[in-house]
């Protein structure tokens, strides 16, 4: 049997009209002249192009973070997804978290989470389980605990998205997956205007496992009726600190 890898690559080269030894094109992203309409975006006189040749006439990374308008927009978007949102100052955070975790028997937190945030949980009767990579909790244990509390890497105002990247204050992916309530703390300084800002930030560590969360788990598979909470956490609570 011949090698599938070689065969597939050879078939791709043939399809592109290249011999096996031909020089590949450089990454000049010329738009193929397939139709009259795509021809509108020919290299000369086309929209703004980045150094890689892609026409990037859209709004790119802004470099800004924590703007008040963006924080307000994030809140609006999150509420639209039917996530719950609380806003507080850093001083108020432990008390607010205790309120957000009221009624759950226990909460799992990643090992790197700021322990000061947990100050009021004991008094609220919420047991804290720490998921330490060296001694990870079992799936069964995580499935039984009522809530997870984490920080995040970045939040996107325009789309109402929170991104977790597995840093020590966010933990393993499973930590925020099995418990039915996810309480996520977002600092104002982590709020960026749009998706390109978030991608630029996450691109610093592209190897980390990323989870983009935009509201609670949802489905519209039955007659397009939206139902919140299928497999992921049914209850997303965002606490904005700043």
């Amino acid at each position: 049997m011949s090698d599938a890898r070689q065969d597939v690559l050879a078939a791709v080269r043939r399809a592109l009209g290249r011999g096996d030894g031909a020089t590949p094109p450089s990454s000049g992203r010329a738009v193929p002249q397939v139709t009259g309409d795509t021809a509108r975006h020919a290299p000369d006189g086309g929209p703004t192009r980045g150094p890689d040749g892609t026409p990037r006439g859209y709004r790119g990374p802004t470099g800004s973070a924590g703007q008040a308008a963006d924080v307000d927009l994030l809140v609006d978007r999150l509420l639209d997804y039917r996530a719950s949102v609380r806003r507080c100052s850093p001083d108020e955070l432990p008390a607010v978290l205790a309120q957000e975790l009221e009624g759950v028997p226990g909460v799992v937190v990643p090992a790197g989470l700021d322990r000061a945030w947990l100050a009021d949980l004991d008094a609220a009767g919420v047991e804290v389980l720490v998921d330490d990579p060296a001694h990870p909790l079992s799936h069964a244990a995580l499935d039984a605990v009522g809530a997870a509390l984490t920080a995040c890497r970045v939040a996107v105002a325009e789309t109402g998205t929170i991104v977790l990247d597995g840093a020590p204050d966010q933990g393993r992916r499973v930590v925020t997956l099995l418990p039915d309530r996810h309480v996520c703390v977002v600092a104002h300084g982590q709020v960026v205007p749009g998706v390109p800002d978030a991608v630029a930030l996450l691109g610093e560590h592209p190897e980390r496992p990323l989870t983009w969360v935009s509201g609670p788990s949802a489905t519209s598979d039955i007659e397009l009726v939206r139902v919140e909470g299928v497999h992921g956490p049914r209850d997303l609570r965002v606490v904005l600190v700043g």
Partner: protein
Amino acid sequence: MSAVPLGMPGRRVPDGQVGRGPTVGRGRGDAAVHPLPATPPSDPLRWGPSFPEAAHETLADPQLRANLRRATRTIRDKRLAVTGELPDWEALRDAGAAVKADVMERLPELLVELEASVVARGGTVHWARDAAEANAIVVGIAQGHGVREVVKVKSMATQEIGLNEALADAGIEAVETDLAERIVQLAGDMPSHILVPAIHRNRAQIRDIFAAGMDDAPPDLTDDPHDLAMAARAHLRARFLRAEVAVSGANLAIADTGTVAVVESEGNGRMCLTLPRVLVTVMGIEKVLPTFRDLEVFLQLLPRSSTGERMNPYTSMWTGVTPGDGPQEFHLVLLDNGRTRALADDVGRQALHCIRCSACLNVCPVYERAGGHAYGSVYPGPIGAILTPQLLGVGDTGGPSGSHDPTASLPFASTLCGACYDACPVKIDIPSALVHLRERATHPGGAATPTPTTAAMRVAAVALGGGTRFRWAARGVSVAARLTGGRRLRRLPWPGSLWTAARDAPALPPRSFRDLWRRRGGRA
């Protein structure tokens, strides 16, 4: 009659395949739910009769038409709202189109780069020339871990290759975990929409499907969508927790980092991508993107185009294996299965730019009426009408051809209204590709098939190829006008009957314009 002028609907080609899935509707005395389509497909890419014949049946189902009309309109309006609120939507589409065109140009290099990136991060990369090869790879991995069950994230690529059936043949149950896919699987159906595979089923039908097919369904299950979703949650959670192997598709993979992404809503994707120890991802070779930065384009284009949301609830990205977090063994299967065949067509190639958002389905007036099953392929709608024929080599020597072949009839399943092109987030010119593929279908191997249609077109080409010839042809209309007394006709003989089935024929004029013009010496 096997061939008719203009490739008109004629005889039906029997599929002849039997024996799919469990029969639903025997449990607890529930109303029987029959699989849709009734005849199980032999090939996920090519089944059933030709499009016109299949549409003849689906159009006769008023429940289906009502379900589709409501659903497509809902998504359509949502999409317009969320794409309209972005000031740079058109610029994002331009960027998406350019990135995809670049990917096709540099595909060999990008695939090699992706492979190296994934391997560098502890993953294993496999290459599959066709469906059988891809299935054998996945079955081999599952068998290597001795499992009898794998959990699956909704994936077009694995549907295309019939992976579930291949796993079943090896004694391994593939559990679809997306709600709609689970519905389709339990019903023994074929999916009828890329994004909402059970769009053809209403809540009452789904309730019956669950009651009959889920051994742990609550006895008092209602048809409330919330209750149904919660029943699926309970039913699947145990399977997630015990699964050792998961199978997924990929929405995209980044060559320069090896990052793979799955975009979803329910969290079943996160379950599959996080809990099992082994993850196998099957991905079409066209899904590679050059750089991590390209995410900023596609993570804006895809959610807004598909579900009409600013962002889908969950997107997972992983890069090889992360020690201590998620699957500790990762396999990426790079699938050709006809993609290089499509790539070789410089016009049709754009079909490979597709990001499977299904916006074109939702805006298509033909899809809205005929439904997904009429397309006889896991890829329905406008994109399916250009993708499926190319994956199977329509017009190639020995490939699908003729108006009775389900695949060759697909490029004709469009009025060329262009709504799909306007909706496509990566600006695939579907109408132009359809026209191009019609030519391939009527000219297999490059020469026109000697059919009555071809003969009619050749005659018409002569009549329409010059002013004098056309004047004589137009006089034929005047003769017909005299015969009909200039009246509208309610019923014409075949093939005109195809027209008068739904509408009256126009009253014909006594004289053509050019005769009027000549008579009046060049004045109207």
